[in-house]
């Protein structure tokens, strides 16, 4: 036990990993989905380090996206959905940023974004789908011509072409591949050999990780090599895709992590109220992000009482009977 020799060069502190791999203007793929397995601790550290002009690419995202936008870290966004489920049907700072013209954005669908990551992972330039034919996702471009000349931005949002394999009219939508600078994912387990295991749903995390130049993985636990290799069918990514490993229990709080903890309804409800008001949102950041030096301080502030309330039943994966109002 406790032998991390194999991953010694990848194991790092949160602040070091962010400083080393995330720059102003980086294109970042956010793992997780709305209120589950968001890379929250990394998002908070990005905010603390004052990194700006991020280009976020994601499918359906929630809390991490919203705090990053609210804190002014995001310049550009390619997205399918910004929402926190029942706790904010539309993400609040996301909504304000778009309504106030404070962000460059482009809309796709979940499947389209997932396919774009897959195309990046497969190292193909584009990928076809039937999804979206007839919709305004095809008719309207969010990005201007100027933005389309920039690094890691496709020259067109998408293209429609005739299926080349038949004579009858049959149109398909071609989507440009995504190859983000960095993918951020939060997972349950990393083995001492660097193997990644995601429990519950993987969303598009695996495609996102494989499409990115750099992969930063935060995890609940680092587990023995013998454990992670006992049942390799359960594993999600081989070690060589991962560039940075940070052990961060509750690193997705206030979003949930299957088998470990539920989303925190109290925190999400508080956020919902504070995020509505610009000044109160600043107070939220001052208190929960800038006001804590690191993840440990953040957890102390949440308190053991709440951490116990959201603790998941290890068999069912969620906190049974949690008051979610």
């Amino acid at each position, binding site marked *: 036990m406790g032998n991390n020799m194999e991953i010694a060069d990848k194991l790092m502190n949160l602040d070091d990993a962010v400083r080393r791999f995330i720059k102003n203007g980086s294109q970042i793929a956010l793992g997780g989905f709305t209120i589950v397995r968001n890379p929250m601790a990394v998002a908070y550290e990005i905010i603390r380090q004052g990194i700006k002009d991020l280009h976020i690419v994601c499918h359906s995202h929630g809390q991490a996206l919203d705090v990053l936008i609210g804190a002014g870290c995001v310049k550009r966004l390619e997205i*399918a959905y910004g929402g926190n489920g029942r706790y904010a049907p539309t993400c609040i700072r996301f909504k304000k940023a778009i309504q106030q013209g404070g962000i460059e954005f482009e809309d796709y669908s979940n499947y389209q974004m997932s396919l774009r990551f897959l195309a990046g992972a497969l190292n193909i330039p584009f990928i076809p789908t039937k999804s979206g034919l007839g919709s305004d996702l095809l008719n309207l471009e969010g990005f201007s011509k100027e933005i389309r000349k920039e690094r890691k931005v496709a020259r067109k949002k998408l293209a429609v072409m005739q299926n080349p394999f038949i004579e009858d009219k049959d149109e398909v939508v071609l989507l440009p591949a995504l190859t983000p600078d960095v993918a951020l994912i939060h997972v349950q387990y990393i083995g001492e050999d660097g193997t990644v295991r995601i429990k519950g749903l993987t969303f598009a995390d*695996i495609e996102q990780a494989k499409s990115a130049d750099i992969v930063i993985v935060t995890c609940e636990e680092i587990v023995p090599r013998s454990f992670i290799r006992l049942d390799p069918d359960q594993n999600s990514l081989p070690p060589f895709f991962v560039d940075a490993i940070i052990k961060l229990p509750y690193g997705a709080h206030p979003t949930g992590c299957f088998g470990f903890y539920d989303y925190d309804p109290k925190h999400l409800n508080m956020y919902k109220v504070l995020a509505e008001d610009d000044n109160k949102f600043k107070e939220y950041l001052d208190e929960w992000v800038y006001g804590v030096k690191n993840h440990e301080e953040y957890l102390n502030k949440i308190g053991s009482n709440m951490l116990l309330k959201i603790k998941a039943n290890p068999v069912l994966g969620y906190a049974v009977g949690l008051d979610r109002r």
Partner: protein
Amino acid sequence: MALEYSDNEMMAISAGRFIKDGDIVFAGTGVSMLAATAAKRIYAPRAVIFFETGGIDPSLDEIPMAVSDLRVMSGTCLNSGLIEAFSIVGHRKLHTIAFLGAAQIDKYGNLNTTSIGDYHRPKTRFSGSGGACDVASFASGVITFMLHEKRRFVEKLDYLTSVGWYKGGDTRQKLGLARGGALAVVTNLGVMRFDDTTKEMYLDEYYPGVTIDKIIENTGFNIDVSKARQAAAPTELELMILRNEVDPQRLICKA
């Protein structure tokens, strides 16, 4: 004595009644979650509920608050990801029914979940497509939940996020979408369906206590009401299962 029930309860029950054993049901958030869970508990125990996030046939002992909720990963036959989930929605072997919600709908059942006003600088921005556009493109049929208001039932959408019957008639097929289309719209006032030929929306059922005139007043386009009949009120059993088993915390039922 007449039973009392909320709009969301009536909507969940009305939509749930569409689901048959063997259907593969795609559920979104909110009332759609309630309806899908209720359908399985009350009408179609052998229907399969699945989520775009990749959770297939969860036990749903507690109602999920989001499609990524840990509860959609619990007791499933399989946990996968988005790409796998969309391979199910559009699978040619499967009869898939999708529950969606929207901010605006037109008479052909096309949906807007993106924005109101100018797309680039909207008056109101919503969450965006998520999986809605994909599901509307691929599923065998879509049932949409709406608040029945004039500003939501519009002649022209501010943004067409998800295609229903497109411009009516056979225009959906001509786009290259081989199957699917809008099956029904379930609102707080009644249930609308679509004409077999023109694909225009008509009033199928109005709820007890709702008048046909009220539905006409709250619809922003001309709607055929000639086939309308009164819907059956929820039964005691339906409400009991919905309240005691599906949503005991009244997280969604209440509204």
